[in-house]
């Protein structure tokens, strides 16, 4: 990775890093889901990102990497997380076009497109206790960091931090979308599993965009 951009290898590293983090946390995500859903979020996402890693194509631009990963996730995950994560990655990939290198501004636009894709499909807004509560503040933080002149690594770090904070903020919320919405007030007091997994995905992005420029390393440290 050059200082201010990411290439196809870096995006493949992001998908692999996400798969590692999801796999390591699968049991925790499943337990979160058992509290307010049906207890399969970690299992499903683990299956989906493993499939995404297997589907990673060689020698294609970054956009094609994310589109292939997104397709694999839609094909293998099921539930709501398959369409939502799959659409997010495909929309981000489409936003890159054929570019071989993606700079901080282009990545910001792609994250915005991913958020739009998730909202088009899931119809959720901030405050509904869904992955949007992590993704929307992450995109906003990324854009704010970009406007402040941060490089790609700094923007990604800001996004990861905002996503984690956004996920934590779902605890007191009452779910209005997804399976947890059927619980009404009983959904309050639980961390939303989708917001939690979204925070993992953005943490993985910050990992690979780390300032030392070593793609796939854990230089940025644990969440």
């Amino acid at each position, binding site marked *: 990775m050059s200082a201010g951009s990411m290439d196809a290898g870096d995006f493949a590293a992001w998908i692999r890093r996400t798969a590692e983090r999801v796999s390591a946390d699968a049991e925790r995500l499943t337990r979160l889901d058992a509290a307010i859903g049906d207890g399969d979020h970690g299992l499903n996402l683990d299956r989906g990102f493993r499939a995404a890693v297997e589907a990673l194509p060689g020698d294609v631009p970054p956009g094609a990497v994310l589109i292939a990963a997104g397709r694999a996730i839609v094909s293998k995950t099921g539930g709501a997380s398959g369409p939502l994560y799959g659409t997010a990655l495909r929309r981000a990939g489409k936003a890159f076009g054929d570019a071989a290198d993606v700079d901080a501004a282009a990545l910001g636009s792609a994250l915005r497109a991913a958020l739009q894709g998730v909202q088009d499909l899931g119809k959720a807004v901030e405050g509904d206790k869904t992955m949007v509560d992590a993704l929307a503040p992450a995109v906003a933080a990324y854009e704010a960091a970009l406007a402040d002149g941060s490089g790609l690594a700094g923007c990604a770090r800001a996004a990861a931090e905002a996503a984690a904070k956004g996920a934590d903020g779902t605890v007191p919320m009452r779910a209005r979308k997804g399976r947890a919405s*059927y619980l009404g007030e009983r959904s309050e007091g639980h961390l939303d599993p989708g917001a939690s997994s979204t925070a993992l995905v953005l943490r993985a992005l910050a990992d690979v965009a780390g300032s030392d420029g070593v793609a796939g390393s854990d230089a940025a440290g644990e969440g």
Partner: protein
Amino acid sequence: MRKLINAPADVVSDALRGLAAAHPSLKVDPGNGTVIRGDAPRSGKVALVSGGGSGHEPLHAGFVGHGMLDAACCGEVFTSPVPDQIIAATMAVDGGAGVLHLVKNYTGDVMNFQMAAELAEDEDIEVVSVVVDDDVAVEDSTFTAGRRGTGATLFAEKIAGALAEEGAPLADVAAVAREVNERSRSFGVALSSCTVPAAGTPTFELGEDEMELGIGIHGEPGRERVRVGTAAQIVDATLSAIDADMPLSGSEVLVLVNGMGGTPLIEQYVAYAAAAEWLEAHGATVVRRLVGPYVTSLEMAGCMISVCRVTPELIRLWDAPVETPGLRWGR
């Protein structure tokens, strides 16, 4: 976890291999999780495709056959199928008259079927989707994802399937499915949790004297947790919730007393006796009934009651011949 399985990851494909071996009239693809009528596609007949997470057997794969579904798409346990499965099934059963997708109102099912319907459009297959949302346990409001789809799915699959078998056009088949959904309500009670094979531990814990009112069909927690009551009290709570939402007095009704998978038939009949008495006492006339485990939640104990306020035409279609692994009469 004590379960009759080989490996948690293989539960669905192993079960489908068994279904195929037991019912040679079906075309089963265990790897893809699709179950298709042996005689599909039928030229000029509207095809019905449903599906959802596995773990609700006999729903949906057990309802594939004459007079009901043309195909079922089986997702992982409690996880909706993916668009690839749904489009494969849709293309396999389309006989040129279009395909009806019957979808239970769960976010994942709705999204995956929606993506599959878009793919079908690219293949020039006409698809109409009807979403079933009969569960009164959750409040219907513009702020929620709406009601869950549960027991009325069986009513819709049977009745729309009968009309399709007669050669009715897609618009009519979809309309009758919508009508059944609008006339149906369900409410469920859990007396124990189930264990998803891949998770290995019970989804929720219930105390010895507790029950969960208003459950869905995935072992997800319900509306509230209360002290367990007698069968008559449970049935009263269930039918009162349905009656409060859709008054039953003066109606002819089709009733399903559905075991959730872990409740023996003797208790389901105890519940049905209470339900029949309750309905008569409240001015409803039971004209058709079904008692048994039809829409299950693995080995969860408890029951769900579904009621449809029928018309003579709906009764006629309910009575039409059906021949599937899970439902069979008149043929």
